[in-house]
């Protein structure tokens, strides 16, 4: 058979265009299997037919593609494409399927854990705030108690040392009751017979008015001698050193004291007992 003549008879084109009848097609397929030139001729016409058809393309209305894809939307694969023919179909598909499920559950679990954790964070944060507030209150209370304690200790020490002084056998106690018209006043002088230091205990004396001060006088041979000013002090107040005196008295003087007592402002008076 003359293959060249066969190829150029037009049968190739007729076959490719789908115009050959069944008998002609079967004959050509059989010959093509034996003759590579026939296969080449078929391939060549197919290629130029395709190129020509694409060159003669008429773009379809744009909505056709949307309608087509909408019609087929349930027929597309949801899995990743694979280029290896033998393994393509089953293995990666089920693997990806179950794995994506696993990650779905993992993601769900993560979200739940996050929500629970956030809730716990909030709860514990509030608890921590409460505890911190309580601790601060306790610390403040503790500090104020400590301070009070210190004050009491100091006072106790003062009282103790005062007691020591007052109960000392060498201490001369001079009780000074209120004079006529000032009977509800009372003060006591403790006079060290050895050192001659004078201590005053204001048992009952009204609060000195603003810009006034109580002043102690020692009466020495009938004359008043300044024995010191009464300042704010707890318990016994140490005043001046008085070598000799027969009596003590307290007057209310201007602030800072006076050189001589204002006699009509005398409050208490007491004689040193023999």
């Amino acid at each position, binding site marked *: 058979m003359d293959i060249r003549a066969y190829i150029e*008879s037009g049968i190739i*084109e007729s076959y490719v265009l*789908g115009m050959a009848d069944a008998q002609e097609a079967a004959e050509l397929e059989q010959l093509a299997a034996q003759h590579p030139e026939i296969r080449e001729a078929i391939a060549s*016409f*197919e290629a130029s037919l395709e190129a020509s058809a694409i060159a*003669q*393309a008429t773009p379809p209305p744009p909505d056709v593609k949307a309608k087509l894809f909408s019609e087929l939307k349930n027929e*597309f694969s949801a899995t990743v494409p694979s280029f290896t023919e033998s393994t393509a179909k089953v293995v990666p598909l089920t693997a990806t399927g179950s794995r994506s499920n696993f990650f779905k559950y993992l993601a769900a679990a993560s979200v739940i854990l996050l929500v629970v954790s956030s809730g716990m964070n909030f709860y514990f944060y509030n608890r921590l705030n409460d505890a911190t507030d309580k601790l601060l209150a306790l610390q403040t209370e503790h500090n104020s108690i400590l301070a009070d304690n210190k004050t009491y200790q100091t006072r106790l020490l003062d009282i103790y040392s005062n007691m020591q002084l007052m109960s000392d056998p060498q201490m001369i106690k001079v009780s000074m009751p209120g004079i006529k018209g000032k009977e509800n006043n009372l003060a006591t002088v403790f006079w060290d017979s050895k050192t001659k230091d004078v201590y005053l205990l204001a048992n009952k004396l009204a609060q000195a008015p603003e810009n006034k001060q109580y002043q102690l006088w020692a009466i020495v041979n009938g004359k008043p001698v300044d024995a010191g000013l009464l300042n704010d002090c707890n318990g016994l107040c140490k005043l001046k050193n008085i070598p000799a005196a027969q009596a003590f008295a307290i007057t209310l003087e201007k602030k800072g004291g006076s050189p001589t007592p204002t006699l009509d402002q005398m409050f208490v008076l007491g004689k040193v007992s023999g």
Partner: protein
Amino acid sequence: MEAVKKYSETELVLLLKQRQEAAFSYLYDNYAGALHSIILNIVTDAELASDVLQEVFVKIWRQIESYDDTKGRLFTWMLNIARNASIDTVRSRSFQNSQQNRELTESVYELAGSTKIATDQIGLRKLVHQLKEEYRTLVELSYFQGYTQDEISKMLDIPLGTVKTRLRTALIQLKQIIKPA
């Protein structure tokens, strides 16, 4: 078509058999225009041609498993699906009826010089127009209207042998027209 070629034909067929939407979208973008032309050549009604085009792509999608690459190119296979679907549409009774109803309006359009697509001035049919009259009629009847050679022989009252010879000659000439310079 504008779309960038990103698949070889083997890859494309493989991906289509794996039901990949992206591959089908690529196929559509690259070949819908070419198939649309051949459908318009046969169906001639633009609206109907769009429906046939959609139907052809559904067939391509659903029958891709039956495509055998040892028997020819993917485009040859698709072109034959498009041609057969178009001829079936033209021959269906409902189309015949609608064509009759349409005749009047069509002539009105033609008188008005409307923009109706001249479906014999596009695609393969435009190339066939370059053939000599005696060949052109045979190709029209055979390829675009789907008549068998036997039917054509009876229709034109030409011996079957002559129909066959002339048709082969026509196709050889067509091949020369198609062939890139």
